[in-house]
């Protein structure tokens, strides 16, 4: 075998190995983006999904002691019950958009491993009504009775 053929052969083997690596990587870690309607139509247990929707008002249940978070994501047509263990992220609230990543459980709910709340970049006037909430919070915490 000529030198050139040897180099070419060796290179091809490595490239093939890398290609297999990419293929295996994709098939192991692919995440499907779905809406509650799409997921509701054909849920497959064990498959990784990224599910986006609105947190249905009134559905949010947060048990701080057990760190259990339950809520329902809806797209207006279908809704999916979601469970998560851990603190809800800062942006997370009822009536807001959220994206969760996780798997469909056989017991009929979506087990989220991560919650990605959606940021909106729109301009917001600084001194708006939400300020009152912060002021009140500040007051309760500054109140001597509230201190340890």
């Amino acid at each position: 075998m000529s030198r050139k053929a040897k180099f070419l052969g060796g290179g091809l083997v490595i490239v093939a190995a890398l290609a297999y690596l990419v293929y295996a990587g994709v098939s192991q870690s692919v995440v499907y983006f779905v809406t509650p309607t799409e997921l509701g139509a054909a849920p497959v247990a064990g498959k990784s999904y990224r599910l986006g929707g609105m947190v249905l008002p009134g559905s949010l249940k947060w048990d701080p002691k057990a760190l259990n978070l339950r809520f329902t994501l809806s797209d207006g047509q279908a809704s999916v019950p979601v469970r998560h263990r851990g603190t809800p992220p800062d942006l997370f609230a009822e009536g807001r958009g959220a994206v969760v990543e996780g798997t469909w459980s056989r017991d009929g709910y979506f087990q989220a491993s991560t919650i990605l709340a959606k940021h909106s970049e729109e301009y917001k006037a600084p001194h708006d009504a939400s300020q009152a909430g912060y002021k009140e919070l500040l007051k309760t915490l500054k109140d001597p009775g509230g201190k340890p």
Partner: protein
Amino acid sequence: MTPELGYAAAVAALVLAVYGSAASAWSAVKGRADLRLSAERAAVGVWLLVLTCMALLVYAFLTFDFSVRYVAGNTNLGTPFYYRITAVWGALEGSIILWAFMLSIYTLIVVARYRRTQPQLYPWVLAVMLGISAFFLLVITVPAPPFQRLSPIPPDGRGLNPLLEDSGMITHPVALYLGFTGFTVPFAFAMAALIIGRTGDEWITITRRWTIVAWYFLSLGLLIGGWWSYHVLGWGGYWAWDPVENAAFMPWLTGTAFLHSVMIQERRRMLKLWNLTLIILTFSLTLFGTFLTRSGIIGSVHAFSQGSVGQFFLGFLALVVLGAFSLLAWRLDRLHAQGELDSIVSRESAFLLNNLFLVAAAFTVFFGTVFPLLSEAVKGTKVSVGAPFFNLVNIPIFLALIFLMGVGPLIAWRRASSENLRRNFLRPLVIGIAAAAVCRLLGVANALVLLCLALVVFVATTIALDFARAARARRRTGDGWLEATWGLALRQNRRYGGFVVHLGILVVALGVAGSQAWSTQTEATLDRGESMELAGYTIRFDGLQAAEESNHFKVIGTFTVSDRKGPYTVLTPAKKFYPQEQSPIAAVDYRLGFMEDLYLVLGEFARDGSHATIKVQVNRMVSWLWIGGLVLTLGAALAIVPEPRRTPALPPGAQRVVA
């Protein structure tokens, strides 16, 4: 007046850059020195005008000129003084100005250095660099004008993105952009070499130190970015394979490949075509990164400002890629290798493999980043691949690269004899395996960590043995140990700078392996006075306090931590409430250590302070990343220092024998 002046300066700079680029090219065609002089003056003018733009924007920020939309969007009356300066590059418009400014500085240095020494290449280099400047100035004047007026003028601004209120934001973008723009210099020299048809090694010899400079800054930028992610974002990690990170990582990978393959061309006059391709690729990837992150085509979670900027970058990227590769095709007949590969077991093939793996890594990062687009275009399904993909694919590639890092610098050129292999690699290999075996016996069970450790020890031993041999050889000439070592590092600073960079990478690799394998975390809701335990730490929740800062409210949790030996520290993670933000921002608190960091994030809490949820992480060996990064940048700095002239010069193709 400020915004109008700034806009006028940007337009004038654009006109001058276009003129200078054309004049410089024309001067090269016609050999007219007067035109060349005029183009040089234009380059100085561009620098002055962009400097004016920067200064005016800083002035607008310092004086709270909310009539400027960009100022109103990125600062408010409460923004502290120094963050008002860094806010200048806190968003797209300002960062493009920063980019243009750095490019104009590089252009001036090129003018000062090469106008006399490189009479043939230089006019084309200047033309290319001013042409690229013109593009960025066009972006400043048309799709992303930082001086746009806002009407009516708001009483207060929106404020800087709270995540950017951090000292890392002073240095991170500056270093990153110095890195990105730094690759313009070798790219411009490569294009100039193709245009005038001198496709030899000249452009590489001239620009090799420039490439190290760009690489140094890009590495620094990535490191500071990782540190920022770690101590600001509050998720306890330093790298998330986020499109923004990938965008900066891809040119780093191809740039690293380029730094290695130029050595083959210098020594063996091979890989001419490959080196040109690599530098075009690296430069294109710096543009692609900006396109990717600014066009809004990627990133369903990360919100970027969108607009026509993406289209401008895509257009320019297409122009650069098409133009550069057409030039390459035109000169293809002059790009034949003068040397050829002799054996598979040789330094050339070790470097080739290194290049193959680095480019493969860049490709997989690219593939993973644009995968959602590809999938939607090809199959119509919306999917993505996350961190697991990047980790799975890149871990084997990087382990292979670490192995090659040990082999490449020591294996013989052309053809390595079994004697050469035995002398250089037998001992390191044995020591590497032994080190892993000892760690296994000491209780390290993670196979990946053990493999990484064996490789790291192998490479470190090759470097140590090589250095010891060379130092011993110098000692025979009468130097003391210290003199011998120091003299060696200075005399062959490029080689030993490279070794120091390799050592830095080894430390980083151990940090990555250790932190991935051994970090642990938990989350709990604690009543006031209640404690929890993790990895030997006992953490007691002592209560909440509130504080009012200039531009936000802060709720601070106090946690008393003790370890096995007794009281350890008090940590105060907080939540910051910015009036302009929809939600609070977590401010983590941590105690860094050599082997492990304790890292606390405050979660939900009761308003009366009776209980709070806390996330506790014990992150192992993360400090190794920062230490390794520091070593790496020191090594790069050592390699940048001009090398003292060697006498006698080695004949081409000769191997410096290290006794």
